[in-house]
């Protein structure tokens, strides 16, 4: 079995060069998908019979919620790979995933709140899913805070990787207990859990938006990771050459 490809994945230089090649195309794809989906969803998808136009927020709410959760698992997986195989790159990806995930979780909560006001008359209810999402945001905060609290980079990496893993073990438990807690106190007037089958005309733009958000996520993650690579690999010769070349370009632009 040839494992060299696996080790090459761990090389920051390889990651940097590959993303330099692929990022423009991926960004283009993300922009096309997101703008198509947004215009389609906001202007052309039919209204919801009950909720009217406010339902159009779904085109932002669902993709951000998806990515908020997926991003946490990705962060934890990167942390686990870092702990097990001691790959430098995976710690950098883990560190980059935390702020993006937190921002997307916040967006999911925000769009949910703004959707809630016209739909059931209040910005915030202690619904099971909303509460779980809030706890997810707190989990992200914990990882972020721990990451920046350590002066020693190595220790900070390991600590936040462990915390992310402990969090993944806890997410199902938290979700189940919040769910149970909610059925206990369920107010009779509010019911969010029903997800009626969507009409294809409504669903297609949503699919485009989800794909677009996934592309966006990959682009953002790569950009954050590239900065992290430059910072941590500053002593290597290839980063030095890169910096020298870019400053030379800046000076020749001035002339």
């Amino acid at each position, binding site marked *: 079995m040839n494992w060299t490809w696996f080790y090459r994945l761990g090389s920051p230089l390889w990651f940097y060069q590959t993303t330099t090649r692929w990022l423009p195309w991926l960004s283009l794809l993300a922009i096309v998908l997101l703008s198509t989906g947004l215009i389609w969803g906001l202007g052309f998808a039919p209204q919801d019979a009950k909720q009217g*136009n406010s339902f159009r927020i779904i085109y932002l709410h669902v993709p951000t919620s998806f990515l908020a959760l997926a991003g946490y698992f990705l962060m934890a997986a990167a942390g686990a790979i870092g702990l097990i195989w001691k790959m430098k790159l995976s710690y950098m990806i883990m560190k980059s995933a935390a702020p993006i995930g937190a921002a997307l979780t916040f967006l999911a909560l925000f769009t949910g709140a703004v*959707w809630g006001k016209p739909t059931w008359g209040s910005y915030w209810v202690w619904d099971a899913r909303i509460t779980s999402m809030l706890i997810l945001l707190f989990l992200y905060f914990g990882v972020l805070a721990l990451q920046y609290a350590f002066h020693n980079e190595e220790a900070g990496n390991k600590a936040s990787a462990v915390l992310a893993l402990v969090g993944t073990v806890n997410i199902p438990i938290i979700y189940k207990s919040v769910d149970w807690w909610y059925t206990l106190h369920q107010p009779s007037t509010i019911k969010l859990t029903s997800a009626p089958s969507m009409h294809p005309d409504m669903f297609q733009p949503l699919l485009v938006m989800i794909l677009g958000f996934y592309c966006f996520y990959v682009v953002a993650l790569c950009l954050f990771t590239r900065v992290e690579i430059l910072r941590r690999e500053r002593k290597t010769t290839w980063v*030095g050459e890169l910096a020298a070349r870019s400053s030379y370009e800046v000076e020749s632009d001035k002339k």
Partner: protein
Amino acid sequence: MKFQFQDLSQMLTMDGHGVYVWSAVIVTLIIIIGLIVRPLLQHKVALNQIAQDLAREKLRKEVAGESN
């Protein structure tokens, strides 16, 4: 597939739901763009910083070479 609104101003109000829909759109766009722009800026800053450090290092070596 057809455009659901008669004109753009109607799309802006969305039968009274416009405030909610558009505020969600605007906040999402701001954060998304921020998530792209921030690392791009930091990338530039980091490169400049490294280039400066290298230039300083080089200068110091030259000066040290002359004094010998």
